[in-house]
């Protein structure tokens, strides 16, 4: 990773439930999420969540992705094409309640459809549900509204807010859209060229350039 080493320490943000990650394309937002999820291994640095160290180059710690309990929703949803919506959602389920998650995201009618027949917004919701079913300690959302029509975006956003409210899962929310940021983030990190250049409460994010 071209990033400078930095320590992403979410412990202090425990009271913060949605951490926004803001920056233009190419600034390393997706790479950062991938590193947190365990898909990508950084050259140097540390990643800690609460008391858990997920990665530490100094101490040679690198927890594999499957043990990190971090839900990852990539930019293009990446639903398994050979499974139905239900198959995708139940893939990593830890005996959780498929019903309530499907309910919150209004997926009940879609469950048995093949994922190739879903719209962009529907795919995103299924992908979110899939990640939630693993009962993660944190959810990473990479530009979840990027593949959704402008006019549908206001429909999807409430779902994400519901997750925060009803399931109490901390989110890291990546976007390059300031308006989204304003509606959803409690706190924002700004990325530029692989470096964090600012850490702001969302209120002043609109003033960023």
């Amino acid at each position: 990773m071209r990033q400078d080493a930095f320590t992403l320490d979410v412990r202090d943000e425990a009271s913060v439930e949605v951490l926004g990650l803001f920056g233009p394309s190419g600034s390393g937002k997706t790479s950062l999420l991938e590193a947190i999820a365990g898909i990508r291994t950084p050259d140097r640095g540390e990643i800690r969540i609460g008391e858990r160290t997920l990665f530490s180059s100094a101490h040679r710690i690198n927890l594999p992705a499957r043990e990190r309990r971090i839900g990852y929703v990539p930019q293009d949803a990446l639903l398994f094409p050979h499974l139905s919506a239900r198959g995708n959602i139940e893939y990593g389920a830890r005996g959780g309640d498929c019903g309530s998650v499907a309910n919150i995201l209004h997926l009940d009618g879609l469950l048995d459809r093949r994922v190739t027949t879903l719209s962009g917004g529907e795919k995103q919701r299924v992908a979110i549900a899939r990640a939630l079913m693993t009962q993660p300690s944190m959810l990473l959302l990479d530009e979840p509204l990027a593949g959704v029509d402008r006019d549908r975006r206001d429909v999807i956003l409430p779902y994400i807010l519901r997750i925060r409210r009803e399931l109490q899962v901390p989110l890291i929310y990546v976007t390059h859209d300031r308006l989204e940021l304003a509606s959803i983030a409690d706190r924002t990190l700004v990325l530029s060229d692989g470096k964090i250049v600012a850490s702001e409460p969302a209120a002043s994010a609109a003033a960023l350039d």
Partner: protein
Amino acid sequence: MSAETWAIARFTVLMATLATLLVLPPAIAVGWVLARKAFPGKALFETLVSLPLVLPPVASGLLLLWLFGRRSPVGQALDAAGIEIIFTWKAVVIAMMVISFPLVARSVRAGIEQVDRRYEQIAATLGAGPFRILRTVTLPLAARGIAAGGVLGFSRALGEFGATIMIAGAIPGQTRTLAVGIYTLVEVGREDDAWVLLAISALLAFGAIYLSNRLLDRRGAL
């Protein structure tokens, strides 16, 4: 088509099917390793795997003859256990397996390389271990390529001659496959019967290639 010809055709298809089924698990394992793993000596490993593809089949047959004969430890162990390989239908299956193995492994490799690694990564974030990912994500998504490999291996096995005649011989009713049958019938002057076997071989070959192409074609629609 005489009873003898029908019997030869049926025997060959049966042996080729068995050989393909038996060769698929190791070919999938090797294909997966070649597609997804890097390790020192990988190029050498690849060459070894491809060996039966470039060696003349009779040469592979000679190696097998030594391996299962009395002068090798494997042959002696089998002898002691009372297991006969040379000049039996088992030798037919083994010859077919060895010759078709590189073809199937290479097809499996190509099929798996086509699977977007990101699916496997996502599955890992969802808590799946490597074996579960292989079973529930990689292989299902590579299924068409693997199936095409199986069909290719099957058609190669159907036509296998050099190695077969070395370790299985041309025993009528016991180890005479279509290809071996054609050769033997010409040798004893029964060319008309040989042409019948040729026609059957051609039909089976056409069918197999057609099926293989259909499997590979529709992959773009996924």
